[in-house]
């Protein structure tokens, strides 16, 4: 332990010097002109957060926000981790799926349960950043992703209404393929959105708490994943999609869609601005992922939340900042700057019309993301799931093998 303490102390000293040089960290003993310095570390960029910070500082002239940022996800997580261990973390920072467990278990974040600024937040968002019933983050928006399609291409194929049943979806894909159009692309360099939606649908069908049962040792991943994976695998066994999607990046898929080389793609709200810019006249529409019983589901989650450092010396100011970030004015500003689907009770977000079905899914609660539902080992399980899915797409693994690999990964972690 002495070696560890010494090395951490050395590291902390070095980081403190760096942090002081960079003008960030928790060195908030008092700002210029008697102002209180409140440090804020975010994974949103400065362009997104500056309007909110400026407005807050204007309303709170005695508080000076020291803003620093790191891009999501790995770089943000590692920077925050280094600062936390060295005792130089910001007073307010982002809590995400990837670090929630470590932040809460390590006692690095304040319990925000019952704080007035959480009153306007969606129950789902607050629960996403809660552990054992205690809230640790304030999240003002969510996202949901499904299938984006070119209405004109589908109309040419005689389709006026997007299928809700999986079998009908496969039939539509085959019809488009027979007509010489590539029907559907969905990348598999990460966990496919349709897999998340199909697993979410199965989870809801089984009562909605299967992940908790898996982590409690009462169920196995196969109970939840084998069925949806078998459904998803039909895309490949039926020849609708080729194994090429394993090597495709998101931008390449969007590019294929923009150029009219594919009729449907898996997409999220983040793709809409690019599409509007590159293909302003394209007749777009979003739909949920069709499911075996005809009740479409979506991939989606609460956006990362803002947490207060447990060691902050400016709790009052940090709470004031969160109060502002959750206010009608700040949420409106955030929506204006990001087009995010905000979920607070007193603001109706202004969103692109094509995203209305996505917003409805958020309101209906018909969305799911495994990484958020897993209480721990999120990154290891995600890495394993992606690798095994890629093997399944290549025909080297069966759906039950993927589920078994997830069980093994959970057991060994």
């Amino acid at each position, binding site marked *: *332990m002495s*070696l*560890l*303490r010494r*090395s*951490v102390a*050395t590291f902390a000293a070095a980081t403190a010097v760096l942090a002081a040089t960079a003008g960030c960290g928790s060195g908030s003993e008092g700002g210029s002109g008697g102002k209180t310095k409140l440090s804020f570390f975010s994974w949103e960029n400065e362009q997104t957060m500056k309007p909110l910070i400026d407005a807050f500082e204007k309303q709170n002239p005695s508080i000076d926000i020291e803003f620093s940022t790191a891009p999501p*996800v*790995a770089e943000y*997580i*590692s920077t925050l*981790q280094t600062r*936390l*261990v060295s005792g130089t973390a910001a007073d307010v920072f982002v809590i995400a799926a*990837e*670090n929630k467990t*470590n*932040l809460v*278990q*390590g006692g*690095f974040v304040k319990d925000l349960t019952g704080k007035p600024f959480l009153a306007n937040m969606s129950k789902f968002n607050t629960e996403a950043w809660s552990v054992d019933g205690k809230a640790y983050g304030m999240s003002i928006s969510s996202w949901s992703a499904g299938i984006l399609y070119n209405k004109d291409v589908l109309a040419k194929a005689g389709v006026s209404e997007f299928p809700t049943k999986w079998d009908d979806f496969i039939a539509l894909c085959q019809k488009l393929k027979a007509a010489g159009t590539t029907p559907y692309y969905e990348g598999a*360099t990460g966990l496919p959105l349709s897999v998340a939606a199909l697993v979410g649908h199965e989870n809801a069908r089984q009562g909605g708490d299967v992940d908790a049962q898996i982590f409690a040792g009462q169920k196995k991943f196969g109970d939840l994943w084998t069925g949806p994976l078998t459904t998803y695998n039909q895309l490949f066994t039926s020849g609708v999609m*080729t*194994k*090429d*999607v*394993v*090597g*495709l*990046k998101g931008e*390449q898929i969007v590019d*294929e869609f923009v*150029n009219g*080389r594919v009729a449907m793609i898996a997409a999220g709200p983040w793709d809409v601005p690019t599409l509007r810019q590159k293909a302003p006249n394209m007749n777009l529409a979003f739909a949920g992922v069709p499911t075996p019983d005809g009740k479409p589901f979506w991939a989606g989650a609460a956006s990362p939340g803002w947490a207060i450092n447990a060691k902050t010396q400016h709790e009052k100011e940090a709470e004031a900042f969160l109060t502002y970030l959750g206010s009608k004015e700040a949420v409106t500003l955030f929506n204006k700057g990001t087009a995010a689907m905000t979920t607070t009770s007193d603001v109706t977000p202004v969103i692109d019309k094509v995203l209305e079905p996505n917003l409805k899914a958020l309101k209906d609660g018909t969305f799911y993301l495994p990484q958020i539902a897993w209480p721990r*080992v999120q*990154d*290891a399980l995600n*890495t*394993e799931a*992606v*690798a*095994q899915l*890629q*093997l399944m*797409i*290549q025909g*080297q693994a069966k759906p039950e093998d993927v589920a078994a690999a997830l069980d093994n990964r959970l057991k*060994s*972690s």
Partner: protein
Amino acid sequence: MTVLDRRAPAVTGALSWLMSPKRLEGLRLQAFMVPIGIVFAVLFAIPLAQSLYFSVTDFNGYSMKVNFVGLENYRKIFTDPSMLAGLGFTLLFAIGTTVIVTVLAIPLAVLLNRRFFGRNVVRAVFFFPAIPSIAILGLVWAFILSPLGSGAINWLLDAVGGFGPVPWLSDGTLAQLSVIMVAVWSSTGWHAILYLAYLQSIPGDYYEAARVDGASARQAFFRITLPLLAPAVTVSSLLLMTGGLKVYDLPYTLTKGGPGYATFTITQSIIQSGIAQAKFGQASALAVVFMLVVGAIVALQLVLSRRLEGRLS
């Protein structure tokens, strides 16, 4: 005579040795080593000691409550299929790029050493791929090697020979080959320039004498050029091998380690375990094992290179 008086000559002798100009000069010279000693300690010795310590603990990078776990982390890394796959591809990449680049760079350097019109431009063209960041090259090559028919290479193959789309990055074996191919493309020119520098130090008289003796170009290459390039081969292959063993950015930007774990590397595994998965103990154990493997490979390579140099010279 007191005891002090009796000791005086010995003390005086020791003092005069300590203060001698030769000794002081030696101390002054040694003082120049202090900064590099500090850098070595801070950047290598202390992190190494930390890694060794963390590798036998359950340190997660967050909590300071650290428990000793013995060799458990080492057991885990040797039973984890992804880490073993990472080790396999890393070795394949390092050995593959070292061999292919060496085989291509030496003849290229010989060609670039000849006099021809536009020689400097051609040298610059071959050197250019070494300039951009390898991560940027990976992103660009991901588009070039797109497995779709619209990918640059597949489009060309179709236009020229009517070949169907080749799954460059979506088939495990082809993805491994593609990553190695891009690495070879980006490194060959740089290493050819390294060989070129050595080639230019070979006196032209040797070749003239060989020509007078009736030696063919092939004989001149194998009897003069290659033996005199042996030290360059040692330097170049050492750089390639060490660079190849720590590869991360190129496979990550091209394939993210897939399909499956086909292009997963040890460095990616260390970064992923340590940062994303908060398993610093396990990542440290992997780093320790990796350091030993690298040390063994580099030592073996140096021994073989020196033997080869001795045999050729």
